[in-house]
């Protein structure tokens, strides 16, 4: 810019500004590559070679022109030097070429070796002396389950309000505190993994997992615009879904953790959590589906077997495809072709099953029992002359264990008890005229030979069904309200809640008790069973919570002696206005209710109750969105150890009782001191004012109060007593 510098006659020196804003020309050689292993040729063959090279490169997806190639010549011999330079438009193209062409066999004798021009220089100048690399100090990774070692045995929960996430400890009031305040930004929502190891946040770029005592980022999955996620039951894998099909822009980073061009157009991805690798992608758009008709998608789309060995996916009406982990190949190379299949569920693993697996997994253990097979159940509707059918299948043997035909079926819902002991198929049936709907519960007893089925017939429509965890009872919400099915504003549907229990004598399920004319529409069993909360959720006028105990009198009476259904006792009734979510903590000690701003904006916030319905905590916070307890993994104690603890509970609880007593007596030394000071100040001020008032006046005032007896108590307190013997001569 000579012109600018010539204007010094203005008396202003612009050189500093010019230096600062001087355009930096790209003078690097990063877009230049060196290709070795090129045949040494005469000038005469130059053109032919160039053609061949351009063609070879083109085959690999690297387009170059003759002009981009420069081949140096040995002027003495008149032959080429066996290498050439290629100039690309930019560095990215050069990188792409290196990846594509390096090690490319040009012909039998020649293999191309491609390097960046700048690298050649660097390698030439390399220091030849060997420097021993520093051995990095081993730093142990923090324990991802550190929270379980809490000395007070507290549980954690996460709250999401506005833009703020907080992780809390929940225990006794004095032990409840904020555990961590993360600075996670811009995400849709948070989710715990099923065993509580990780907490996931869904960002625009993908999913992030956080964990450990420091809450550091543990893993990331680059699935842009992810909307839904699902963990496998053993936390080994993760599924992510976005409504937007995957796009892989040109020049995107490639690797095992990223989408490749092959994944384009899919929108469902399966990942390995430990390595972060992408295992496979799917599309949830079925071919042949008219794109205009968008059905409500079922989530999760992929259903995991409880041992993380298989993941299955249904193509409604056609088949169930089961993939093996971790390869994600189709198991047996073919899907389960089932005409008309609507829905299926895997059978969960009970604690006993898990123990068996552990035992058989120990090396050297005798394979006494047959290895337990996974089971799944599916149902098909009535087609032509075929009745509707529920089928229980073993997998991977694909053997049909039990089949049950059903008639006049509108809809089936499959409910497994969480130990896999029972399966309930809730069958909505219609009368011949299809005008009214009633309900059958087909209950499969899974632990008995030939899987006997028993039917409970009901006249009303069953809105919700729930098994008692680890139990032999279930609860249903049923209704014959005419408003059912046409919800409107202000309409609260009247419901009945019934409890059923397995009668061991007759070996069938019998009604324990029906609680009629309620508004409850949600059943929440405590994860330990026995306690159940009935809630009215999603209503603008009702928000009642009922806390029930189903074994109220078994503590004093021996089991089996009590009358049928007499143990059911209402422990407490509470109300949380506008409640949208009801969740037990993993220990079954507390219940959390929350009103999320995602559903409505009235009195958002959360409350924590004990199992009797006593309110412990209540926070009304505007823009409150989420409350989730941190799940706990199953206990590591064996059945025997648990029994031993139960037996010696009194001894174990002593330490806790003492702790409680200590806490009660001294809430905290500080608080007591503060209170003492406040009282002292108050009393000093009162004494002063009373003195000023004069004894006489005070007497008069006191006297005006109804003549109360004045009782003066003198207390002699012996603080110390010492005896001295005085020797008198």
């Amino acid at each position: 810019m000579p012109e600018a510098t010539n204007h010094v006659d203005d008396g202003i020196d612009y050189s500093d500004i010019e230096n600062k804003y001087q355009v930096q020309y790209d003078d690097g050689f990063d877009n230049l590559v060196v290709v070795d292993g090129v045949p040494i040729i005469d000038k005469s063959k130059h053109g032919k070679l160039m053609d061949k090279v351009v063609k070879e490169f083109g085959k690999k997806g690297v387009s170059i022109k003759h002009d981009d190639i420069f081949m140096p010549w040995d002027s003495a011999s008149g032959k080429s030097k066996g290498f050439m330079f290629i100039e690309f438009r930019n560095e990215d193209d050069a990188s792409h070429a290196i990846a594509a062409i390096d090690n490319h066999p040009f012909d039998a004798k020649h293999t191309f070796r491609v390097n960046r021009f700048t690298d050649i220089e660097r390698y030439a100048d390399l220091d030849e002396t060997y420097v021993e690399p520093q051995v990095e100090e081993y730093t142990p990774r923090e324990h991802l389950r550190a929270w379980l070692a809490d000395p007070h045995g507290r549980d954690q929960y996460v709250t999401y309000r506005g833009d703020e996430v907080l992780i809390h400890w929940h225990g006794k009031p004095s032990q409840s505190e904020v555990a961590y305040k993360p600075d996670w930004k811009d995400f849709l929502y948070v989710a715990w993994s099923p065993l509580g190891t990780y907490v996931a946040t869904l960002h625009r770029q993908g999913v992030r997992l956080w964990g450990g005592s420091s809450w550091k980022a543990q893993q990331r999955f680059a699935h842009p615009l992810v909307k839904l996620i699902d963990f496998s039951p053993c936390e080994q894998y993760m599924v992510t879904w976005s409504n937007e099909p995957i796009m892989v822009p040109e020049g995107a980073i490639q690797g095992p953790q990223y989408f490749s061009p092959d994944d384009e157009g899919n929108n469902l991805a399966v990942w390995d959590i430990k390595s972060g690798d992408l295992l496979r992608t799917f599309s949830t758009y079925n071919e042949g589906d008219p794109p205009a008709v968008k059905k409500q998608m079922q989530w999760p789309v992929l259903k995991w077997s409880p041992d993380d060995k298989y993941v299955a996916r249904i193509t409604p009406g056609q088949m169930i495809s089961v993939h093996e982990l971790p390869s994600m190949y189709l198991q047996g190379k073919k899907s389960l072709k089932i005409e008309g299949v609507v829905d299926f569920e895997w059978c969960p693993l009970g604690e006993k099953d898990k123990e068996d697996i552990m035992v058989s997994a120990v090396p050297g253990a005798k394979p006494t029992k047959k290895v337990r097979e996974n089971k799944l159940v599916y149902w098909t509707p009535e087609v032509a002359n075929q009745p509707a059918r529920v089928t229980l299948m073993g997998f991977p043997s694909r053997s049909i264990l039990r089949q049950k035909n059903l008639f006049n079926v509108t809809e089936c819902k499959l409910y497994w008890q969480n130990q896999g002991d029972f399966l309930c198929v809730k069958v909505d049936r219609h009368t011949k005229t299809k005008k009214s709907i009633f309900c059958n519960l087909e209950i499969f007893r899974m632990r008995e030979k030939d899987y006997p089925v028993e039917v409970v017939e009901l006249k009303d429509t069953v809105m919700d069904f729930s098994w008692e965890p680890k139990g032999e009872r279930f609860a249903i919400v049923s209704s014959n309200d005419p408003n059912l099915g046409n919800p409107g504003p202000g309409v609260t549907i009247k419901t009945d809640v019934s409890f059923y229990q397995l009668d061991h004598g007759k070996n069938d399920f019998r009604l324990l008790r029906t609680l009629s004319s309620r508004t409850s529409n949600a059943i929440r069993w405590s994860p330990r069973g026995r306690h159940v909360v009935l809630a009215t959720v999603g209503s603008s006028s009702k928000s009642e919570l009922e806390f029930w105990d189903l074994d109220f009198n078994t503590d004093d009476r021996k089991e089996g002696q009590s009358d049928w259904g007499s143990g059911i006792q209402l422990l407490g009734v509470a109300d949380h206005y506008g409640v949208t979510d009801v969740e037990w903590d993993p220990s079954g000690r507390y219940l959390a209710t929350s009103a999320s701003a995602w559903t409505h904006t009235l009195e958002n916030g959360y409350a924590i109750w004990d199992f009797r319905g006593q309110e412990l905590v209540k926070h009304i916070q505007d823009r409150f969105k989420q409350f989730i307890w941190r799940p706990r993994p199953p206990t590591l104690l064996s059945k025997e150890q648990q029994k031993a603890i139960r037996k010696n509970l009194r001894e174990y609880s002593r330490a806790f009782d003492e702790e409680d007593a200590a806490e009660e007596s001294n809430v905290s030394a500080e608080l007591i001191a503060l209170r003492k000071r406040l009282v002292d100040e108050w009393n000093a001020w009162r004494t002063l004012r009373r003195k000023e008032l004069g004894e006489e006046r005070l007497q008069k005032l006191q006297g005006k109060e109804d003549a109360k007896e004045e009782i003066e108590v003198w207390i002699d307190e012996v603080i110390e007593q010492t005896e001295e013997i005085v020797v008198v001569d």
Partner: protein
Amino acid sequence: MSTDCGHERSLTQIKFNAEGDLLFTCSKDNIINVWYSHNGERLGTYEGNNGTVWTVDVDPQTKYLVSGAADNTLRLWAVATGKCLFTWEFPTAVKRVAFNEAGTQVVCITEQRMGHQCAIRVFAINQEGDGTKQSKEPIFMFNPIGSKATVCAFTLQPHIIITGHESGKVALFNVKTGEEVDSNERAHGDVVTDMQMSKDWTYCITSSKDKSARIHDTKNLMVIKTFTTETPLNSAALAPSRPYVLLGGGQEAMNVTTTSLRQGKFETRFWHKVFEEEVGRVKGHFGPINTIAVHPAGTCYASGGEDGFVRVHHFDDSYFRAKPYGDLEIIE
């Protein structure tokens, strides 16, 4: 507990007599009622006012009752007969009345309206004879400068009254000279809605629309305690014999319809007097609580609401036994 239903419109003030056996209530329906406090039975009415009765007070002997109303009158009633003994008329409404400790004088505040300034007058009550011979003229009268007074009470010092103002100010006035003796301009951030004296008249509690209540030393106006809630307060009372204060309030009547019932916070709140911590709540009203009074012996309390109900709650044994903060002795 009993619920009285003798008023058709919202309550304005309620008062126990010195013995606590009677409860006087006044409301916007122009009538003053008197009830037996132990069972809620109505003993009688005091009729004659032609407008909202804003305020009542009863003398220590339970002989005379004074009332101030929107018909610009201050009336003296015989408690026992329900007869109106004397009427004073003013240019504007009477917003607050209060007897002195002996029952010999009455202080009243008249509204600032239609060119008339807010005025504070003190009348001597002639207890001779049947009480109908009263002097028409006040013994003292003055116009407080600045923000208008909303509540007032006598103190034990001669001629000194304590006032609460629209601006949130709490002040001491010498009624003889009309001079402001002392003031705390920032006692509250909004209208002072109620003022009740302690048993020995050495301190008082005020409530305000600024959502807080405060205990003041009546000698030097020092703020001793502050109780901060999340709702505008209409009334505050001191519980004798127990270290609690009772606060009542709620959303403004005009705003209530726009919010759900439960957002109105229509509960009587119990706060610890010394630790300034909330210790409990009593539900019951369907509208804001306008006025609270506690039995002089501390055995029950009454609340009057915008909903037209007076609720009398008797404390149970556990209320007297409970020592939620340990064995610290607190001087009343």
